[in-house]
């Protein structure tokens, strides 16, 4: 009986080898970044991009490409990669395929920190606001993790419930603060929906090492995370130190989300959508899930950023709105397929 059913109707993911998947993703990422450099309010040729980098003549074109297009062509993929990897770990930790850094309240915590910094402490600079965002995500991660842990064990359900509670609470505070300070509303609204536009390149250099550290922690934990996809008894039976692995993975999630939010603001649903694509492409082992999520996240965020330039052309839409729409559709499909 076993053997008659053995003909595999469908191997996991696509029928591509891992090298092809990685090569394809890297190629796509390069292509997306090139699109990000050339396409926009003005469309530049590859020659002009080349000139701006290697023969900068001080022309307006060169200034726009090197000073405005380049930062977002770097920040978008890095943010997407960070949120993709964070999403993989959150979904594994919570054993919930519709969980994401948003669900854990990290984006909301970052938003609250930005609004508080701006309204209460008069922080105006982008660097100051992004530091506040990272701080907010990190503090929220620690608080959510701490409350969930002290409420008796870090069960997946508890982590998500505490996260959702904190997310609502943070949103409520943000609403109150914004309503009572209309003057700053306009300025903060754009940030609060997430964007890669008008970011100084310094944010990229600040974020890069943090994302690398978060990613390396994730990879170092990859085998333990694999085992954590099974139930707690099975994982513990395999010798996985549950508390330590969850704690460390949470630190990685906080670093990655904090870095992403500090660069781009709370870009919604990237961490929800990307892990699904990564698993389809490379299967469920984290040693591949994480790199694939980083690459696909980079492609996804970069393409969303390019699309944001055209949906209400000539005005630029917030990229967070684009990813929210795509994310909502994916979420609905997942819910209907009961993948959650």
């Amino acid at each position: 009986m076993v053997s008659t059913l053995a003909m595999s109707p469908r191997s996991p993911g696509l029928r591509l080898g891992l090298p092809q998947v990685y090569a394809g993703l890297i190629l796509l990422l390069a292509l997306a970044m090139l699109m990000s450099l050339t396409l926009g309010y003005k469309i530049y040729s590859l020659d002009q991009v080349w000139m701006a980098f290697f023969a900068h003549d001080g022309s307006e074109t060169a200034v726009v490409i090197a000073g405005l297009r380049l930062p977002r062509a770097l920040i978008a993929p890095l943010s997407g990669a960070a949120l993709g990897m964070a999403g993989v770990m959150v979904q594994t930790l919570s054993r919930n395929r519709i969980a994401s850094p948003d669900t854990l309240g990290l984006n909301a915590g970052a938003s609250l920190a930005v609004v508080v910094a701006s309204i209460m402490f008069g922080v105006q600079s982008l660097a100051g606001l992004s530091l506040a965002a990272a701080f907010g995500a990190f503090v929220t991660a620690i608080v959510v993790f701490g409350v969930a842990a002290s409420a008796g064990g870090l069960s997946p359900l508890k982590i998500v419930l505490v996260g959702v509670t904190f997310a609502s609470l943070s949103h409520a505070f943000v609403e109150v603060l914004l309503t009572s300070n209309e003057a700053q509303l306009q300025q903060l609204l754009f940030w609060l929906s997430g964007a890669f536009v008008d970011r100084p390149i310094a944010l990229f250099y600040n974020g890069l090492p943090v994302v690398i550290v978060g990613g390396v922690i994730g990879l170092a934990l990859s085998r333990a995370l694999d085992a954590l996809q099974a139930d707690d008894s099975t994982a513990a039976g395999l010798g996985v130190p549950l508390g330590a692995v969850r704690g460390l993975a949470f630190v990685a999630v906080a670093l990655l989300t904090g870095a992403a939010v500090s660069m781009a603001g709370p870009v919604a649903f990237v961490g929800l959508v990307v892990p699904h694509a990564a698993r389809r492409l490379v299967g469920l082992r984290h040693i591949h899930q994480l790199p694939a999520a980083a690459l696909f996240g980079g492609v996804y965020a970069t393409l969303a950023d390019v699309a944001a330039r055209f949906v209400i052309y000539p005005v630029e839409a917030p990229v967070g709105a684009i990813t929210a729409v795509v994310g909502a559709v994916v979420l609905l499909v997942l819910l209907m397929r009961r993948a959650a």
Partner: protein
Amino acid sequence: MADLVPSRIEVRDLTLMYGHDTVLDALNLPIPRGKVTVLAGPNGCGKSTLLRAIRRLHTGQKGKILLDDVDIATLGAKDLARQIGLLAQNPSAPPDMTVEELVRLGRYPHQAMLQPWSEKDGVAVNRAMDGTGVTGLKHRRIGSLSGGQLQRAWIAMVLAQETDVICLDEPVNHLDMAHQLDCLDLVSKLNKEDGRTIVLVLHDLNLAARYADQLVFVHEGHVRALGQPEELMKPELLAEVFEVDAAIMTDPVHGRPICIPRGRARAAAKEVA
């Protein structure tokens, strides 16, 4: 007879509480090497807790569990996981995980952090899948398997762990009769061919009597009786431990004792009166 075989595991004065409830009360139990030990008892008697304690999944217990005379509390997590494997009750994993990915999880205690997948790991995984007959299913998602196939895949996962002691917590729950036998025959084969020490929790007394070398009746946190199935399958003992009034016969096929419950023991007592 059983005491001629040196114990692989020795549970000594084990007391375990859930809050204020005493689940195991100064329990003692030898588990002989290379034998199949089956823990049986009514619901809530502590048999699953005992099994999980042997795999050190509970903390805050009093007493000791010795593995070859070494207190398991002194062993590292991975070290212990290389010696005692556990198939949890109703284990779960994502439905889109493939059988091979599931079986590979069993290699966790054999790998250091960031150590690449080794040839030895591959051999162990293939042997585990061959031994359980799931090699042909290795690319299938576990969500698409039948109950019997799924249970084989989980047993393969535990086998890949290459432990000498294997604990299985109600492994035939939710399986139909054919797959129950299939699963327990497989477990029995691991014992007979590889000489592994097996500890099983089973609900079905007749299955327990059929597969056990040593049968253990757990009752209210104590070991009420242990020995060969023939010694334990007695009407008085079943009435006391399981509260059933049962007739005991000898299974004409395997020569093992089987019980045929007439009804609850209390009702029977009334009848006699």
